[in-house]
Each structure stands twice: as structure tokens, then as C-alpha cells.
């Protein structure tokens, strides 16, 4: 036995030694010169925080109580490391690629950076880890109570001891876990200290084992014989429990926040996993090698009623091996402290990142997260979280009274954190997994676990007792002891099957019926296909490697010359002989500024920090990058728009040009036609007038004939000019319509009179039905008459029947009136029907038509002005035209 003071002194010296190692490692790491830090064995040893004080002391206790069952706790991780190496590799790759800082971050990142999910996992991790921390406090306190002078210890009391231990651990964690926020969340100092502790605990257990086998017993054969004699050999293994516990511990090594911290976050090189995949199982094997001998000898040698959880410590003490006992004590102390430190660190990262800082940002309304002030807040949040986690553990320890067997608390904690497993594995392998599914599964599993397993173990106060015993509201099947009315089954297994089963079902089912958001889809692809688009992490050479990578990146962006000069200047300014500067914050800030000129501030920030791993690229950073990208895209789409506008303008110009060319051609044609129309009558006029002027020898009759021709041709010229003017006015819309009330019959009468058909009795007979013509109109009667005149005179000119006849039919339709002019001639050949409304078109069948071919063109223009239309009606035998008057020309009778 040692005095309590002595024991405390030894602990303090040990802890100071750990501090020393940690400081040294941090210093070497920043200098980039500690090769051993980059060793896969340090990584492997750091994984040993899996074996906590629970395993250190509790494995022997478990063996004494339940035989070989303790092996399951080692078997699960061994299977994972050997058989599921690829899964670990994928997790590590994702962790590095996505800059994952914790298990909560991993889950939330996968499911679209969901804040709610991160907070849920954080809460679950805290609740799941608290019993575990309590367990470590309990084991350290117990070992104190066993080791130290009973009198002195009683004076101090277990509670006070636990408080001191918790305080000390909090301090250590704060110092090495939150020295700065230089967070890729890697802590080389801490990891080295933990590696050392791993060696101490293994050495202690092996030493006790050797002592028991060769010191107490007489070698391996004797031990085997003793095992055969002991009650342990009579334990029959429960198959279901074996499978269950192995599965549970396999799940735990993937899901425990502290394991995630060392396995993924602190991993510096993916290649280390290859070593760990055999070295870690070997470590576990060595840790378990002497568990059974120690348990058997303890059962035989130590008095009945001695706590089997402490055999490791009490056996050497019973044989007065104080130094060995001290080593064991330090081993147990190491197990407890390393676990608590890493757990507190991991939890503080989660609490601060996913709960405290988001709340802070919400309260302070979005301060710049990279500002100095924000960094102070984050650091403070971490420190407070560490204290909070240890405080929670302390409370749990005090409330559960340290009574429960260590192993059972450990298993409860295992199952708690394992609720993350479906969402974790689903997220890595199944792109269809959704946030809603993850939330539903984790929440349900967590609730079942808390109710069925955690509450009955934690709640000792009378307050909850009634509810727990009788079920909430007296509903029996909700009683935690008999969930769903299941009785007599192993409570742990029942809880495991229920919680993980419902968890997995809900996760799958809800994932299937919900759709992932775009962010989730993006992240899902990044996670599931991580090997497709990420390179394995290079060995972490500290600052040098980072500076190298930074230089390469800077060269790509700034150009080789400029980047080289920049780095050399910076190195010179830092007083370094080498051409590469130390990538300290000042240099990074300067580099960021330089890069920002080329790629934008947010992108520069993200790029620099991707390489230095200085910080996870936050959603805010990404959004800033996206903003910049959006601006660039907008700019380029503006250019694109402008260029397509230019293309369109060019096309329009070409079109306009073509139209102008066409118009010019039309004008030429028109002029040439007008020229022809004018020159033709002029020719006759000139010829005959010259004949008349020469005068001699012409008979009077001839003279008169010539004069008449001159007169006719002059009239023709005048008509032509009138028509041209008329058409021009109509076409340019400058025509004034004199609308007045008329009847259709009046207009037709007028037209008939003007064409002279009525007086002469005429060449053509007009057939009308006056009854139908009594329609009141409000229109320009003169213009309408002009159209009718044209149609009638056309019939006069062109109808080639023996007894020409023009039939005028009026048809009143709803909303319009149709007036049809059809003659009994041979009509207009089909191929000319489309041309007759064009200017200067005359039927080829006639030889001496006097018009200029403008009549129908003018008539059609007039009808358009009047709101109606003029069309040719084919297939009527003779030529048939339809004049359609619009509804608005109809006067209400």
C-alpha cells in the first residue's frame, strides 16, 4: 500500500510526463521534423483507446462472472479491422476528402449538411458517452480506493476523488485539445501521449499476466489445469449473446465518437490503416491473452466477495508486489484518462460545432465565422464543452452510485452510439439514403434505447421509478423491463434487436419514400463514390508538404514565375534559408489575398485551406464560392446573351437587306410596268398626232378616226394616272372613308348606272334580286360602289359567253353580308387565279382590254379598308367574285 499523497504524486508525475511527450510532439509536428509521429504504429496505438479502463479492469471481472464472453468485445473490432478493412478505408477517405471533424459531422455532411441531424447525433453521442465517462471515473476512483491507504482515502472520500480526477482530465484535454483552433481537428501531441499510454496499459496487463502464470502458478500447463478446475470452464456460452455482443462491439468501433476521432479524424495517412488492420487486432489479442488466467487465479486466491473487476490490481497487492501493482494502477489510469480525454475532445468538437456555435451565430446574426471574435467563441465553446462532458460523467457516476458492474454500463453505451450505424453505413453505400430516413431511424432507435436500457440503469431517484416499473400511463407493454411484453429475454439483446431493427427499418423505409435534396444527392454521390474522385491522402509531412502543395497550386493560378517569387520573398521574410516559407497564418493570409485577385476571395480561401487542412470548408465558404461562380456565370451568360443578340441583329439586318433588295426589285418591276402602261397609249397618240400634223392627203373620215383614237388613248392615260394615285393612297392608308347610312340596293344601283349597262341595255345582262338587297349599311358608299363598278365592268370586258349575263346574289350570314358576282363566261384559268389581284395583271385571253390591270388590286385594297374582303370564288363555271362586308358595316334595322 502507498500513501494517498504518494499515489497522487505518482499520478501527477505520470501526467506531467505525458504533458512533456505531448508538448514535444506538438513542437516537432509544427517543425515538421517528427518522423515517429507519422508512424503507422503511433496511429495503431492511438486506436487502443478502444480498450478503456472498462476492458483493462472489467475484462477480468467479466471473465470471472461470465466466462469467455469478454472475448466478444475484442472479437467485434478484430473482425472489422481484418474483414472490413475496405469499409474503414472508405470512411477514412471520406473523412479526409470531406474534412470531416466528427461522427456527427460525417452523418450531417452525408445528408446534405443537415444541422438538425448533426445536433441529434451530438446529443446521442453525449448521452451515449456520459455513462462511459462515468465508468472511467469510477474505475480510477475504485483503483485509488483499493491502492491507497484505506484510512486516508476514507477521509478524502470517493466522490471528492472523482471530482479531482474529472477536473484533472478536463484540464489536460483543454490544454492539448483546444490550444488553438487550427482545426483539421488533428492533435499530434495528444495522439503521442495516448500512444504512450497504450504502451503502459499493455505492459501492465502483460506484466500481471506473466506474474500470474509464472509467479503465482507454475507455468502455462498449471494455468490450463487451474482453468479446467475453475467454475469458469463450466460456463456454457450463450450463442445469441455471443453473436449479439460481437456485432455490438463491431458496430461500436465504427460509431463511438472517440474511435471516430482517432480512426478517421486523427488519421494522417490512409496507408496507416493497412498496418493497423493487423497490428490493432494483435494489440487486442495481447490485451486479452492473460485475462482468463488472471480471472481464474483471482477466483482461487482472493477472498470471496472481492470485486472481480479489480482482480488485476488486487492480485499483485495480495502478493505484496507493490511495484507491479503501481504499474497496473498506472495502466488503469492510462486507460481511463486516454479514453476520457479523446471522448471529451471529440464531444467538445461536436458540441461546439453543431450546437453552441450555430446557436451563437443565430443569436448574433451571422458574424463572419473566420473573424477573431468568432474563433474566440469557438475555443471557449470547446473548453466549456469539455468541462461539461466531464461534469455530466461525474453526475452520472454519482447518481448511479458506482454500483453497476462496469461491463454492463459499457455495453449500454455501445448500443447507444451504435444507433448511428444504419445511417452511417447506409450513407456510405446507398445513394438513396435520405436525411429524413436518417433522422427517423436514429431518433427512433435512440428513443427505444434510452427508454428500454438507459433509463432503468440511470434513474435511481424515486421520481421515475413508478413509471419505469409500471410503464408510462400504466401501459404494461411499454415497461422497459418487458418491452412489447417480451419477458425473460436478455434485456441487452432485446434492446439491441428492437432499437437497431426499428432504426434500420425506419431508415430504409423513410429513405425510400422521401426524395433527397440536391445537396444530399451531391453529398451522397461524394460519399458513395469517394474512391472515384479523390486521391489517397499523401503522407502528412507537416508544414513542408503543405508549402509544397501550396506552391504547386499557386503556380497553376498565378503562373510559375510570380508564384516562385512570392514564395521566395515570403521565405526570406521569415528568415528561412529554404525557398519554401512556413505556411503560418500570416503567409496563408497573404497567399489568399494574392490568389483572390485571380479566382475570388471565397475560392482562394477554400483552396488554401483545402491544402493546409487549416479548417473544414464550411457551408458558408462553399456558398461564397458558389456566389463567385454564379457571378462569373452571370457575366459569361451576359456575354453569351450579347453575342446571341448580335447574331440575331445580324440576321435581322440580313433579312432587312433582303427585303430592301426585294423592294428595290419590286420597285424596278413596278416602274417598268408603269413605263409600259404609259408608253403604250403615248405611242398611239404620238403616231396619230404626227400623221395629223403632216395632214396632207388625209380624208376627213380618217382624220376623225385618228382624232378619236388619240382621244381614247388620252382618256386611257388619265384613267391610268387616276388609278395609280388611288392605289397609292389606299396602300399607304391615307384614305379617308366617308361612312354614311346607305342600303346595299342603292350602292348596286349606282354601280350599275355608272357602268352604263342599264341605259344601253348593254352587252351584258345583270340579274339581281332586289328583295335580298334591302340591307342597311353604314359604310363608304362611293368606295363600295367603286368595287362593284370594277367587278361589273370586268364582267363586261371579259365575259365571253354568247349572251353574257352577270348574276349578283346577296347572302346574309350571321355577322356579315356576302355579295357574289358571277358571270356565265368561261371563267379565269386556274393558274391565273392567284395573279388577278396583283397590279398590272390582265388576262392574257384578251387582246384589247383598256385597263391598266389595277382594278382588282384597287378593289381589294378598298375592301380591306372597309373591313371586309374581296376574293375569287373558284369552281363556279364563269368568273365569280365575292365581296364580303363586315358585321360593323351592318346597321341595326
Amino acid at each position, binding site marked *: 500500500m502507498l500513501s494517498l499523497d504518494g499515489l497522487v504524486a505518482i499520478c501527477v508525475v505520470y501526467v506531467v510526463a505525458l504533458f512533456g511527450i505531448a508538448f514535444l510532439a506538438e513542437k516537432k509536428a509544427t517543425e515538421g521534423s517528427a518522423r515517429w509521429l507519422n508512424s503507422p504504429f503511433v496511429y495503431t496505438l492511438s486506436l487502443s483507446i478502444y480498450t478503456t479502463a472498462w476492458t483493462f479492469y472489467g475484462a477480468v471481472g467479466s471473465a470471472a462472472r461470465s466466462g469467455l464472453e469478454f472475448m466478444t468485445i475484442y472479437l467485434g473490432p478484430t473482425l472489422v479491422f481484418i474483414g472490413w478493412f475496405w469499409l474503414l478505408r472508405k470512411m477514412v477517405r471520406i473523412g479526409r476528402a470531406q474534412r470531416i471533424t466528427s461522427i456527427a459531422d460525417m452523418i450531417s455532411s452525408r445528408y446534405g449538411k443537415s444541422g438538425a441531424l448533426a445536433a441529434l447525433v451530438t446529443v446521442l453521442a453525449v448521452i451515449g458517452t456520459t455513462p462511459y465517462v462515468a465508468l472511467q471515473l469510477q474505475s480510477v476512483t475504485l483503483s485509488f480506493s483499493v491502492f491507497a491507504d484505506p484510512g486516508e482515502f476514507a477521509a478524502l472520500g470517493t466522490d471528492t476523488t472523482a471530482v479531482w480526477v474529472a477536473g484533472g482530465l478536463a484540464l489536460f484535454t483543454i490544454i492539448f485539445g483546444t490550444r488553438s483552433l487550427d482545426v483539421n481537428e488533428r492533435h499530434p501531441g495528444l495522439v503521442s501521449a495516448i500512444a504512450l499510454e497504450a504502451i503502459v496499459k499493455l505492459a501492465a496487463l502483460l506484466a500481471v499476466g506473466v506474474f500470474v502464470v509464472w509467479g503465482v502458478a507454475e507455468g502455462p500447463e498449471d494455468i490450463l489445469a487451474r482453468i479446467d478446475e475453475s467454475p469458469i470452464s463450466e460456463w456454457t456460452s450463450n450463442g445469441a449473446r455471443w453473436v449479439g455482443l460481437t456485432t455490438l462491439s463491431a458496430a461500436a468501433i465504427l460509431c463511438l465518437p472517440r474511435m471516430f476521432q482517432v480512426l478517421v479524424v486523427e488519421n494522417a495517412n490512409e496507408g496507416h490503416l493497412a498496418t493497423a488492420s493487423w497490428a490493432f487486432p494483435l494489440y487486442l489479442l495481447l490485451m486479452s491473452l492473460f485475462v482468463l488466467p488472471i480471472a481464474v487465479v483471482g477466483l482461487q486466491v482472493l477472498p470471496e466477495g472481492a470485486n472481480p473487476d479489480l482482480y488485476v490490481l488486487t492480485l499483485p497487492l495480495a502478493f505484496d508486489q507493490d511495484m507491479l501493482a503501481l504499474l497496473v494502477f498506472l495502466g488503469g489510469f492510462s486507460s481511463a484518462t486516454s479514453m476520457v480525454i479523446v471522448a471529451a475532445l471529440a464531444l467538445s468538437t461536436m458540441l461546439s460545432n453543431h450546437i453552441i456555435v450555430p446557436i451563437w451565430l443565430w443569436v448574433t446574426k451571422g458574424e463572419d465565422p473566420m473573424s477573431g471574435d468568432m474563433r474566440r467563441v469557438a475555443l471557449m465553446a470547446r473548453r466549456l464543452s469539455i468541462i461539461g462532458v466531464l461534469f455530466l460523467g461525474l453526475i452520472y457516476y454519482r447518481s448511479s452510485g458506482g454500483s453497476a458492474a462496469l461491463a454492463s454500463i459499457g455495453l449500454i453505451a455501445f448500443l447507444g452510439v451504435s444507433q448511428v450505424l444504419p445511417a452511417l453505413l447506409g450513407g456510405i453505400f446507398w445513394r438513396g439514403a435520405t436525411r429524413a430516413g436518417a433522422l427517423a431511424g436514429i431518433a427512433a432507435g435512440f428513443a427505444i434505447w434510452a427508454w428500454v436500457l438507459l433509463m432503468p440503469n440511470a434513474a435511481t431517484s424515486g421520481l421515475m421509478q413508478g413509471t419505469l416499473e409500471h410503464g408510462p400511463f400504466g401501459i404494461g407493454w411499454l415497461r422497459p423491463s418487458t418491452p412489447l411484453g417480451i419477458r425473460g429475454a436478455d434485456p441487452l439483446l432485446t434492446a439491441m434487436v428492437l432499437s437497431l431493427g426499428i432504426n434500420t427499418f425506419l431508415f430504409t423505409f423513410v429513405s425510400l419514400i422521401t426524395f433527397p435534396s440536391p445537396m444530399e444527392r451531391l453529398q451522397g454521390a461524394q460519399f458513395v463514390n469517394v474512391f472515384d474522385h479523390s486521391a489517397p491522402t499523401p503522407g502528412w509531412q507537416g508544414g513542408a508538404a503543405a508549402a509544397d502543395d501550396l506552391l504547386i497550386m499557386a503556380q497553376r493560378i498565378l503562373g510559375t514565375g510570380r508564384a516562385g517569387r512570392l514564395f521566395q520573398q515570403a521565405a526570406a521574410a521569415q528568415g528561412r534559408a529554404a525557398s519554401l516559407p512556413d505556411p503560418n497564418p500570416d503567409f496563408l493570409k497573404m497567399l489568399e489575398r494574392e490568389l483572390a485577385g485571380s479566382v475570388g476571395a471565397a475560392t482562394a480561401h477554400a483552396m488554401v485551406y483545402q491544402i493546409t487542412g487549416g479548417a473544414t470548408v464550411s457551408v458558408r465558404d462553399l456558398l461564397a464560392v458558389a456566389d463567385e461562380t454564379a457571378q462569373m456565370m452571370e457575366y459569361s451568360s451576359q456575354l453569351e446573351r450579347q453575342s446571341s443578340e448580335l447574331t440575331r441583329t445580324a440576321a435581322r439586318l440580313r433579312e432587312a437587306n433582303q427585303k430592301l433588295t426585294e423592294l428595290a426589285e419590286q420597285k424596278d418591276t413596278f416602274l417598268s410596268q408603269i413605263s409600259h402602261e404609259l*408608253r403604250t*397609249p403615248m*405611242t*398611239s397618240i*404620238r403616231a396619230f398626232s404626227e*400623221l395629223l400634223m403632216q395632214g396632207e392627203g388625209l380624208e376627213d373620215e380618217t382624220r376623225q378616226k385618228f382624232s378619236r*383614237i388619240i382621244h381614247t388613248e388620252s382618256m386611257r392615260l388619265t384613267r391610268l394616272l387616276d388609278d395609280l394615285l388611288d392605289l397609292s393612297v389606299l396602300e399607304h392608308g391615307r384614305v379617308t372613308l366617308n361612312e354614311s347610312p346607305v342600303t346595299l340596293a342603292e350602292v348596286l344601283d349606282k354601280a350599275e348606272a355608272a357602268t352604263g349597262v342599264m341605259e344601253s341595255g348593254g352587252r351584258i345582262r345583270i340579274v339581281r334580286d332586289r328583295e335580298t338587297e334591302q340591307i342597311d349599311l353604314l359604310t363608304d358608299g362611293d368606295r363600295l360602289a367603286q368595287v362593284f363598278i370594277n367587278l361589273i365592268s370586268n364582267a363586261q370586258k371579259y365575259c365571253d359567253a354568247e349572251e353574257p349575263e352577270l348574276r349578283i346574289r346577296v347572302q346574309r350570314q350571321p355577322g356579315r353580308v356576302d355579295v357574289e358576282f358571277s358571270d356565265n363566261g368561261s371563267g379565269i384559268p386556274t393558274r391565273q387565279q392567284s395573279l388577278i389581284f396583283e397590279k398590272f395583271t390582265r388576262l*392574257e385571253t*384578251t*387582246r384589247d382590254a383598256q385597263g391598266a390591270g389595277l382594278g382588282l388590286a384597287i378593289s381589294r385594297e378598298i375592301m380591306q379598308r372597309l373591313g371586309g374582303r374581296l376574293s375569287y370564288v373558284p369552281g363556279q363555271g364563269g368568273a365569280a367574285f365575292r365581296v364580303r362586308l363586315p358585321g360593323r358595316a351592318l346597321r341595326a334595322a
Partner: protein
Amino acid sequence: MGRRVLLVEDEINIFEAISFLLSRDGWEVSGHGNGATALDEIARLDPDVLVLDVMLPGRSGLDILRDLRKQPETSDLPVLMLTAKGQSKDRDLALALGANAYLTKPFSNSEMVETLNRVATGGQKAGT
């Protein structure tokens, strides 16, 4: 040398005028008013000189001229083209197709008679 002229012209008054002029000058004048049947009429009458209007119903005078020059019997028939389209490119086209002379309407009576006589006597190609 014959004095028979065929006048292909659809404007009845212009036909009257030219017919009067040429008759007085001693020509035997025939007339035809349709482009489509003009070639047949030319073949049938076999005139010594042809006066051909460009704008004819049924077929353009230029097309008729092109066909005339392709046929061996009429390839050297003297042709005087008349047109009311006053553009030089029409005249160029007519001369290129083998018209012997070209007159733009309206023309003076003496011009008409002189040109026709020159064309009929195989004088140089000319026109105004």
C-alpha cells in the same frame, strides 16, 4: 426584194398607226396579236421583215425571237423589236438575242419607217 411585213403587236391602236404608216410607204402589212401563236403565223406568212413587240399576251416577244433564231428558215429573218419598257437592259437583251433593230415606244413615224427600211435592206443593226 419583197415588201411584205408582219406586225406582231397586241395593242390595236398601235397596230393601226404602224400599219397605216407602212402601207403608205409601200409595204404589204399583216398583223397578229397573240404571242402564243405568233411563230405559226410567221411560218405561215413567211414575211420579208418582222416587227415584233416585246410585251405580248401568251408569249414574250423575246422568247419568240430566240426561237426564230434557232430555226434555220428564220435565223436570218430581219426583225425590228418594239418595246414600251424603256430600260437599256431590255434593248441589250433584244440585240444579244439577234434583233436587227430596236425601237422604244413612243417613236416618231419617220424613225419607224426609216428603221424598218434599213432592217429590210440588211443594213447595219441599229436602234434607239
